[in-house]
């Protein structure tokens, strides 16, 4: 009798374990297997098409060529760093020797002026896009809140926003460049003009979605919550801090995500056109260079740009999860 029940129980546990394994299998395939298949098919199609496209710079690069260029770009970066290190070491020994000879001599330290590597360009682009984006947020979020609170202001500013929102960065760039070179004159500039140009172009294009979404978020707060604030006689500042900001955080983040996407796209275009340092310039330089490796290097940059864009979006999402009450 007992053995029968135990067998039955055994069968039951076996079955539930099998189900669990199957379930887990389905989860893994959804999480890993299917995306892997998608990527594999894409790579296959890519290398097949690439093989059949002939350009004046040789065959269109396939995945293998791009991977080998990634290795090259990394190697170039390492080599450049070694060179820089060697330069500074030489300079130091030279200065030490001169100071030993003549103690009154003040050693001059010169910066290494090698060419920027792919990795340097990535860092430059990231710094530029974040500066432009943060400047946009600093303007857009308070303005958006104010607009959301005041119907009058919203009516006054809305047409301007609607007109400037669709303007391409390429149209702003010449204006920004001219204005910056006219206004930003300093014998010892803290940051380079080209940085200011790219940053302001990014700001001009990414400020709009944030203003609009913040304003919508604020103006669509539930009337009941506003009534609570009225009954409690919250001061204007407490009202914004305790009711308006938390209530519109989800919409503010939606605006920020849209804006950062725009900012990243705009930045690459701005760097390309204005020869400002960054990934855009890297692409343009390679295009002008026109060696047999150029296309593969540009393709490597394309993949990198896409990947960074994806990471930036994920970054904002993570920030939203941390800051928002509804996630």
């Amino acid at each position: 009798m007992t053995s029968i029940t135990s067998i039955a129980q055994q069968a039951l546990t076996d079955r539930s374990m099998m189900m669990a394994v199957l379930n887990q299998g389905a989860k893994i395939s959804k999480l890993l297997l299917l995306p892997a298949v998608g990527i594999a098919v894409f790579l296959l199609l890519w290398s097949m098409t690439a093989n059949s496209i002939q350009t004046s710079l040789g065959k269109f690069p396939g995945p293998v060529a791009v991977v080998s260029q990634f290795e090259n770009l990394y190697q170039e970066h390492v080599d450049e760093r070694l060179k820089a290190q060697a330069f500074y070491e030489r300079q130091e020994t030279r200065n030490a020797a001169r100071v030993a000879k003549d103690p009154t001599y003040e050693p001059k330290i010169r910066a290494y002026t090698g060419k920027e590597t792919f990795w340097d360009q990535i860092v430059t682009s990231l710094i530029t896009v974040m500066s432009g984006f943060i400047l946009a947020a600093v303007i857009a979020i308070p303005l958006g809140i104010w607009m959301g609170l005041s119907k009058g202001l919203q009516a006054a500013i809305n047409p301007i926003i609607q007109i400037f929102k669709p303007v391409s960065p390429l149209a702003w760039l010449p204006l920004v460049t001219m204005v910056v070179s006219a206004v930003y004159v300093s014998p010892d500039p803290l940051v380079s003009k080209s940085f200011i140009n790219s940053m302001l172009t990014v700001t001009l294009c990414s400020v709009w979605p944030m203003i609009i979404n913040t304003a919508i978020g604020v103006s669509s707060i539930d009337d009941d919550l506003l009534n609570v604030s009225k009954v409690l006689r919250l001061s204007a500042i407490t009202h914004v801090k305790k009711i308006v900001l938390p209530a519109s955080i989800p919409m503010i983040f939606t605006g920020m995500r849209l804006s950062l996407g725009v900012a990243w796209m705009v930045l690459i275009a701005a760097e390309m056109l204005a020869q400002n340092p960054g990934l855009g310039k890297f692409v343009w330089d390679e295009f002008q260079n026109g060696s047999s490796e150029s296309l593969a290097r540009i393709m490597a940059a394309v993949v990198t740009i896409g990947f960074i864009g994806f990471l930036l979006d994920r970054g904002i999402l993570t920030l939203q999860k941390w800051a928002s009450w509804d996630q």
Partner: protein
Amino acid sequence: MSTFLDISGVDMVFPTPKGSFTALKDVNLKINKGEFVSLIGHSGCGKSTVLNIVAGLYQASKGGVILKNTEVSQPGPERAVVFQNHSLLPWLSSYQNVELAVKQVFAGKMNKVEMKEWIEHNLKLVHMDHAMHKRPGEISGGMKQRVGIARALAMQPEVLLMDEPFGALDALTRAHMQDSLMEIQNQLNNTVIMITHDVDEAVLLSDKIVMMTNGPEATVGEILDVNLPRPRDRLALAEDSEYNRLRSAVLKFLYEKQRKVEPIINSKQASKMQDISQKDNKIADKVTAS
């Protein structure tokens, strides 16, 4: 001696695209301190408008409200409101929701420890001390309404205004909430104005039932004094002749004198309401399951 709360000669006219709409016409009502008054009437009769005028959220077009010899001109915590759909801030826990009110009303009058005790005391009063640190999204509809009541009580209002506080709750939860409210009222003896659709609720809770005529130009139709002894028990009252007399008086007013034929279009709205209450029930199930 002047009345505690005096609503006198109140008209309310709303501008609409089709011209002005007179919702209220010459509403007069005197309420004594510690009185529990229910406003009852068909939907659309302007009960909520009266409440909002007392709260200061609406300005009467004519006439006005005087509370303790001062005219009401703006909203304020001495006329705390319990809203129909709880109106808790969803990003704050129950405790923090009450805290926001306490900090605002008692700033400079209580220190931190006293405030904490006061907040906890009010949450205990509505039996919500076990879920103080849960957010509105994590508790059931009835529990949310309890926190809403705790928030209003914590302001120590002169008048507590309740806009169909239990309207969105299922019948069992509602009965439970009514018992809680009576228990609290026994302790605090607040002056309360409550809007309700529910005849039993009105008779069970009130000292005075104000029955309103149908809009437009709605006004106070009849006032019924409820002199049932307290504490009241819903089971004992069910057999009580006085209770049943009052109950049928209200029913007669609503369904004979102020009979209202509702158009059928409202069935759509009704099904929407049902969806909402079902959602609330689901949340309640989830809470009890966990």
